[in-house]
């Protein structure tokens, strides 16, 4: 209870008095809680293995809580009573189980708020309780669903007066709220309210209304009242801006009711986005077209240039003929240059053509040069692609075959669904996921370094445990098993079933079972004593295992339980005889069984036996366990063997 805050003054210094059972704020002196013990749920383990809650006085506690919270929300008595009724319904349907009391109570109160139409938000409750809204919302939804209460949809108009009051408009309060309501109606008609928080809508409406009535309210002031984020409010305002109503003047707005409705803002936003996308696409297409045009012009220019060049080349060549060797080299250089240029032109042309093809544009443009170079590119690509591994080159199929064969040679899964179907699995890629040895070593090293502390702690822990084990003080934490799972009751008659059920879960600690036994034993004789006992040896064993060695040393559990059970079972009607007899042929060995575990246990009786070692303690259990299992097999519940171990946890 250290993290608690006083509800009255916000102080954190809270004094808990365990003796009186109350919590008092030392700052303001208000009693935050009394009868603390009552509000906590305690569990006791009953002898039957189950646990039950005690000391929880639901009605009293719930009423107090509801009053406390309801008064903070300023709800009237009628609402509080309704909330309490909801709470009682929730309790009677066990909806409080597994949930915090405060959550359930808050949900009940909110349910009332919704049905009664009071201007409270779930957020207010979460504010009071300091609990996440969504947690409360979950509880609320569950309660509403389970109790079949159809809360009417929230009307944002409810909150207007409340928020208007908080914004302090003074005398003009009424007018402002009326304007805000009108705005809100308009917003509703323009589909602004679906899927939106009512408080955000209210905030936007109030802000606009306040401005319309010449009040200077900032966005900040409004959001502190309506409790939404600033951006949310701004979004609502911009959405409102988009509606035709926002184009009206104040006077017009007060007089005119526009007939048409708008599409939801989210929808229009989506449409706008879509349109923008389309526009973008169109634009990019156009851009490409223009580019194509430009490049075609470029091409034409290049061609023109080239056409004019050969003449120069020819001139140069003629010059070279009669010139010196130097000239020829220079001319050669020149030729090379021109060739280079040609290549470039061809390349640009090629680019353009590729564009065209991609765009699916018109093919017709002047293309004369560069056609011999066409073939140059794809082979280059191909040669690039060539070294990529193919399945055959890397011998994947071989490795797969190998894997499959090794798989089939494995004896473990020859049939059934256990076998991993390898079809379509590319082993090579999987191999890539797995690091090779050196990489693994590096990673391991890194990991070890990073987690050195954890590893050290782990080692220390192990060492400690080992030490404790040596000293014999180690307590093994056995996992807590749920007590829900019980063996199914198998009985041939209703009476027997009820008896077994009674035995399995002790209904009340206040029933005097011995008297009951006496009653039932008075009903009939006990001729089926022998075959009755193996039947109950299961439960007998259960009880015997549950006992601590010390208690077991006191008396033979099987016999003692057997004694208790015998009269209970002995009152079986005549029908039972048939089943008993039917079981008998298979139980010549079983007949002697009830005796055997007894004998074993009697042996283990002396205290000295258990005192020397704990580990040996299991053995007698195992020994007496075996015949019990076989006795149970007779009854048809084979899985008892594993159930029995779980019973230890109780």
């Amino acid at each position, binding site marked *: 209870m250290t993290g608690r805050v006083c509800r009255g003054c916000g102080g954190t210094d809270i004094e808990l008095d365990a003796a009186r059972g109350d919590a008092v704020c030392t700052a303001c002196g208000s009693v935050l809680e009394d009868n603390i013990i009552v509000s906590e749920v305690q569990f006791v383990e009953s002898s039957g293995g189950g646990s039950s809650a005690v000391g929880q006085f639901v009605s009293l506690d719930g009423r107090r809580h509801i009053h406390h919270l309801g008064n903070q929300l300023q709800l009237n008595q009628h609402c509080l009573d309704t909330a309490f009724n909801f709470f009682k319904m929730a309790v009677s349907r066990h909806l409080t189980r597994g949930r915090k009391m405060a959550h359930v109570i808050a949900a009940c109160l909110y349910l009332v708020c919704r049905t009664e139409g009071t201007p409270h938000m779930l957020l207010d409750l979460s504010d009071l309780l300091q609990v996440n809204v969504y947690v409360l919302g979950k509880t609320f939804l569950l309660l509403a669903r389970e109790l079949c209460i159809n809360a009417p949809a929230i009307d944002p108009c409810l909150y207007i007066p409340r928020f208007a009051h908080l914004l302090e408009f003074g005398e003009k309060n009424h007018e402002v709220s009326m304007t805000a309501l009108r705005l809100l109606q308009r917003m509703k008609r323009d589909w602004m309210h679906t899927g939106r928080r009512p408080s955000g809508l209210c905030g936007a409406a109030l802000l606009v209304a306040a401005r319309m009535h010449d009040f200077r309210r900032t966005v900040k002031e409004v959001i502190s009242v309506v409790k939404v984020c600033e951006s949310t409010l701004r979004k609502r305002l911009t959405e409102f801006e988009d509606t035709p109503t926002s184009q009206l003047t104040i006077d017009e707005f007060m007089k005119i009711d526009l007939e048409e409705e708008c599409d939801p803002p*989210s929808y229009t936003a989506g449409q706008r986005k879509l349109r923008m996308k389309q526009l973008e696409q169109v634009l990019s297409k156009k851009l490409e077209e223009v580019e194509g045009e430009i490049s075609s012009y470029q091409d034409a220019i290049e061609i023109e240039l080239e056409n004019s060049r050969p003449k120069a080349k020819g001139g140069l060549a003629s010059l070279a003929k009669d010139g010196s060797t130097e000239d020829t080299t220079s001319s050669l250089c020149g030729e090379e240059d021109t060739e280079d240029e040609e290549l470039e032109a061809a390349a640009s042309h090629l680019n353009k053509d590729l564009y065209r093809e991609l765009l699916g544009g018109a093919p017709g443009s002047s293309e004369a040069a560069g056609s011999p170079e066409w073939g140059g590119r794809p082979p280059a690509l191909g040669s690039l692609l060539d070294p990529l591994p193919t399945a055959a080159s890397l011998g994947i199929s071989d490795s797969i075959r190998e894997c499959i064969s090794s798989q089939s040679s494995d004896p473990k899964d020859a049939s059934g*669904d256990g076998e991993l179907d390898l079809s379509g699995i590319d082993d090579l890629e999987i191999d890539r996921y797995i690091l090779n040895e050196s990489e693994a070593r590096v990673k391991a090293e890194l990991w070890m370094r990073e987690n050195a502390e954890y590893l050290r702690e782990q080692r220390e822990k192990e060492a400690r445990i080992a030490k404790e084990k040596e000293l014999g003080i180690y307590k093994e934490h056995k996992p807590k098993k749920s007590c829900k799972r019980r063996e199914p009751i198998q009985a041939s008659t209703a009476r027997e079933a009820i008896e077994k059920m009674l035995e399995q879960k002790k209904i009340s600690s206040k029933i005097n079972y011995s008297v009951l036994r006496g009653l039932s034993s008075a009903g009939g004789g006990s001729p089926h004593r022998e075959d009755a006992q193996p039947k109950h040896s299961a439960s007998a064993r259960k009880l015997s295992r549950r006992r601590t060695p010390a208690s077991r040393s006191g008396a033979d559990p099987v016999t003692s339980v057997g004694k208790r059970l015998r009269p209970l079972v002995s009152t079986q009607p005549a029908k039972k005889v048939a089943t008993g007899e039917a079981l008998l042929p298979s139980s010549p060995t079983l007949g002697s069984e009830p005796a055997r575990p007894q004998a074993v246990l009697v042996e283990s009786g002396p205290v000295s036996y258990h005192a020397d070692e704990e580990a040996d303690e299991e053995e007698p259990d195992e020994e007496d366990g075996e015949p019990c299992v076989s006795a149970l097999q007779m009854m048809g519940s084979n899985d008892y063997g594993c159930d029995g171990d779980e019973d230890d946890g109780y």
Partner: protein
Amino acid sequence: MDADSDVALDILITNVVCVFRTRCHLNLRKIALEGANVIYKRDVGKVLMKLRKPRITATIWSSGKIICTGATSEEEAKFGARRLARSLQKLGFQVIFTDFKVVNVLAVCNMPFEIRLPEFTKNNRPHASYEPELHPAVCYRIKSLRATLQIFSTGSITVTGPNVKAVATAVEQIYPFVFESRKEILSFTT
């Protein structure tokens, strides 16, 4: 995926979650240290493993139970699970691929109209719940199919169900109800 009898509705499956068992204990540290595509969450006791093809993420628990998420069809989920089991085999575990089960399918679907949520909620009371304070969508549960639908005012519907078939049936079932409380689109923009 599946089409309604009257109107063709595209149901786009966005996520398929499946589980399977390997029936062997998995040494998480070994997986973590020898795999390149893993994240080891030691404090939680799980390893996340990602595959590229199909693009799935698997949560591996040391008990041998594995949860795969991120597939976009049931077949893909199965394929991914098998691949995952294979890679575990390659890591040297005696993996047996059993108990494969698709547990959850998430799909989205767009209605060609908008939906009046308050009206829709009122008409389908016990199943639908609409809390704008908590969530902008109506939550509609179909108990028999174990499917949950989130219905938004714009007409888009998110469906979660135990398998693809259930999701498809859920959409088929919900269609007449949302059609009832649809809103005619006023501004036709293409």
